């Protein structure tokens, strides 16, 4: 087996050194009735060529975004990833190290995480950020739990524009943690009245912008309403690139900002691994979940970085920890950070404008398709269409014509009676030809 360096001669010598006659003796602590007598009914070892052949065949059975005009978003977005990003994250020292437990030989990881925390804080307009969570949805659940700890209240209000998967994750965790959720009805046109739902028993409002239907939300009035009642505003985003063009949650008064960071540096990869972004106010530092990297000096007075304030974390605090998270998403955070340093502020703004322009162009083209209506007054790179008939069926029909058209709302909310709605995203990757193909395929399928 190519990955196992020990030879049979080594194994014999090592067994002799230990004083065990065979492998059964080595496993003497395992009750003998538990040891498998025969090998399991599973295939035997395979060469590189065989494994590659097998798995490539599986990969070929999928219609990849690269091989079709592609307009799917709703929480995960296709963007161009500079070649250098993927090269850099595959450096052995980044790929094959672990949590920086020994800072003297982990400064590479610690410094890029310190840079990452700073970039996330700048991007979201918040004071501090942590070193990443699993993904946007779990970061969102952590934000609700944190708001409960801070306000000592246990009721969260969910906007009807929150990604339904995020709402589901919140429902699950709240159910088991014994917390209350008030979920407002799906709000396709961003007309919900959140403010009147807030009272002194509410710990936080969870509000997404751009929302899952693509609408842009002004957080400021809701932040104000929250603060009047001693509640916190949790701002959510699923498209990090939007922050290059849109007012930051910090600017609009958010207390905690969480989001999905996949858009920068990370491929779609059928849903994961991604990275959760988590940012908040300095005053909430001690209640923040997850790992934090801080600057310090070494014994020679040189600048360096360490994992800090770990008295909040499970390995020190155990059942009193602010979260149970241990392994997080460092390598995805590295990809995010490299992509963002390559872009820089000017590049990010240009990228955001290119995305917006692409979506605006598609919306304008769709105006000529009879029976199709764009529901958004404002949007970034994603919007919702009302189509004649069933959107899921339309998507299947367009896929047969080789166009991946978007996410039918019924896929996310099967019982909401919104079967004629389609969420469409258009990014910088789409060409004019792709958008023409979209319009043609839609005309053909209707």
């Amino acid at each position: 087996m190519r990955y196992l360096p020990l030879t049979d001669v080594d194994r014999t010598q090592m067994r002799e050194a230990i004083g065990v006659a065979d492998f059964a003796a080595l496993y003497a602590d395992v009750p003998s009735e538990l040891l498998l007598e025969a090998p399991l009914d599973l295939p035997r070892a395979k060469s590189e060529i065989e494994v590659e052949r097998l798995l490539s065949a599986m990969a070929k059975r999928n219609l990849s975004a690269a091989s079709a005009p592609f307009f799917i978003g709703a929480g995960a977005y296709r963007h161009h990833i500079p070649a250098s990003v993927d090269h850099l994250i595959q450096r052995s020292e980044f790929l094959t190290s672990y949590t920086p437990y020994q800072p003297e030989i982990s400064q590479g990881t610690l410094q890029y995480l310190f840079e990452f925390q700073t970039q996330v804080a700048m991007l979201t307009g918040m004071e501090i950020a942590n070193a990443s969570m699993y993904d946007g949805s779990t970061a969102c659940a952590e934000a609700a739990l944190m708001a409960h700890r801070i306000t000592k209240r246990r009721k969260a209000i969910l906007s009807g524009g929150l990604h339904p998967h995020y709402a589901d994750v919140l429902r699950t965790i709240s159910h088991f943690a014994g917390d209350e959720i008030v979920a407002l009805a799906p709000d396709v046109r961003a007309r919900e009245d959140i403010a009147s739902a807030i009272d002194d028993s509410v710990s936080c409002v969870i509000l997404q912008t751009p929302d899952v239907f693509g609408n842009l939300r002004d957080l400021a009035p809701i932040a104000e309403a929250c603060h009047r009642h001693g509640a916190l505003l949790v701002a959510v985003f699923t498209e990090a690139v939007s922050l290059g063009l849109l007012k930051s949650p910090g600017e609009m008064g958010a207390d905690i900002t969480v989001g999905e960071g996949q858009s920068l540096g990370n491929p779609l990869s059928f849903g994961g691994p991604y990275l959760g972004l988590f940012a908040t106010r300095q005053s909430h530092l001690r209640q923040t979940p997850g790992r934090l990297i801080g600057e310090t000096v070494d014994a020679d007075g040189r600048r360096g970085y360490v994992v800090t304030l770990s008295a909040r974390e499970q390995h020190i605090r155990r059942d009193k920890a602010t979260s149970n998270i241990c392994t997080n998403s460092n390598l995805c955070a590295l990809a995010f950070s490299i992509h963002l340093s390559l872009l820089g502020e000017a590049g990010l703004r240009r990228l955001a404008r290119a995305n917006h322009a692409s979506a605006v162009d598609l919306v304008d083209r769709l105006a000529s398709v009879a029976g199709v209506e764009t529901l958004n007054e404002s949007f970034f790179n994603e919007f919702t269409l009302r189509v004649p008939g069933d959107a899921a069926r339309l998507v299947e029909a367009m896929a047969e014509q080789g166009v991946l058209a978007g996410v039918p709302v019924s896929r996310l909310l099967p019982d909401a009676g919104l079967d004629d709605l389609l969420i469409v995203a258009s990014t910088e990757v789409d060409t004019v030809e792709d958008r023409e193909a979209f319009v043609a395929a839609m005309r053909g399928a209707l």
Partner: protein
Amino acid sequence: MLDHPKDFSFETFSGNRGLDQEEPPIFEIGRTDTSGVDIEEPAHLEPRLGALERKGPIGLPGLSEPEAMRHYVRLSRKNYSIDAGLYPLGSCTMKHNPRLNEKIARLAGFADLHPLQPQSTAQGALALMEELSRWLLTLTGMSAIALSPKAGAHGELCGLMAIESALAARGEAQTRKVVLIPQSAHGTNPASAALLGFQPRVIEAGADGVVSEEAVAKALGPDVAAIMLTNPNTCGLFERNIVAIARRVHEAGGYFYCDGANFNAIAGVARPGDMGVDAMHLNLHKTFSTPHGGGGPGSGPVVFSERLAPFAPVPFLLREGETLRLVEHGDGAQSFGRLTAFHGQFGTFVRALAYILSHGADGLAQASRDAVLSANYLRVALRDVMTQPFGDRLCMHEVLFDDSFLEGTGVSTLDFAKAMIDEGYHPMTIYFPLVVHGAMLIEPTESESKRSLDLFVATMRDLIASAKRGETRRFTEAPRHAPRRRLDETAAARKPVLRWSAS
């Protein structure tokens, strides 16, 4: 040899020391108007942003591509890694990460696939998830699987949620609020239990390092929801009373959650399903070689017994003839709901399956046996100079020492670990598990050659002899040959600086 470190640390003008180059943060290199990505400015754009356009500066520095390459390559060289040396971090299974797996995960048919594209266009991806499930279920001897948990700790939540749902179905969710957890458990176990409103109740292990049937029996009662037991445990020992413990827990109406972080000792050798386990997470980033990535991403699929299977989260896979369907909504059924957006860490599923297919059933068993063999080899090679807290006995895939062999030397476990850094090694896990004074938990994995193990032993023996000879400064002043010397963690915590700012 042991001059004061000041004598050589800043002897160069630049602060660099040959290949060890200093590198400031991007904020001191880049400029907000520089970019390493060429993007065409849209020719014509009438924004539809309402009044929500961002106006003020963001402050994000940009780097040209050569500057970015240099920055991150320099940073990378300040990290230790498996590829560069033995990384015996106990409980973390730092095994070799095959590059074939990286290559396959990057095939367009996997990497460029959207989680919400029509399932009819992603049948290959679903087939891969089904195949991985089949392997994991067969290896563990369990009935059902949830692939979506994002890491081990997330898997713990998943397992405990299924347990609480099963209790609720019996009408006992309100009365059973205690989870039994041994003192040696990883911190995530009590943290996960507490997060869901359970009270952790500590059970003590015996003098032999394992939990006895009697200790569990004594702690059981009508208020107990479950036991969380790590097997092999974090002392490197197989919980040999596990079958009797499981029986006791079941008889008392509780469930058995097994922390499977240490599955690398027994994969292909023994099955948790035969031990009475009801739920267990697997860390794909440990046992199944998906890269640790500097601290993630991980992946923590959970396998369930028949009793808990109905409560598994969404999404899950259903085969309908030739077609695979991912069930994303559990309405009306007993599923406890959704743990995360989308379907889990698909990219790690690809890597784990590539690892599994490469090994085959025979290779997986061999890998486990080699891991156990290597740990025991280190144990016997070091047992005359180090001290084992539970007597001289066989261990599983990791070997635990305490610090009594350092008594009177003035060298602590931490000092010893730092001296290992100077010798070119990543230290073992230290001060964990908490039940052992000055713990040193060594996990070599199956990826080390005998030559590598022998070199490690020779180095450890030299260090120990040196400590015993009173060469204390070799330890207390270590590391001296790393990119940084010891860092001031107290200062970092007292006045936290968590982001860069111009000063």
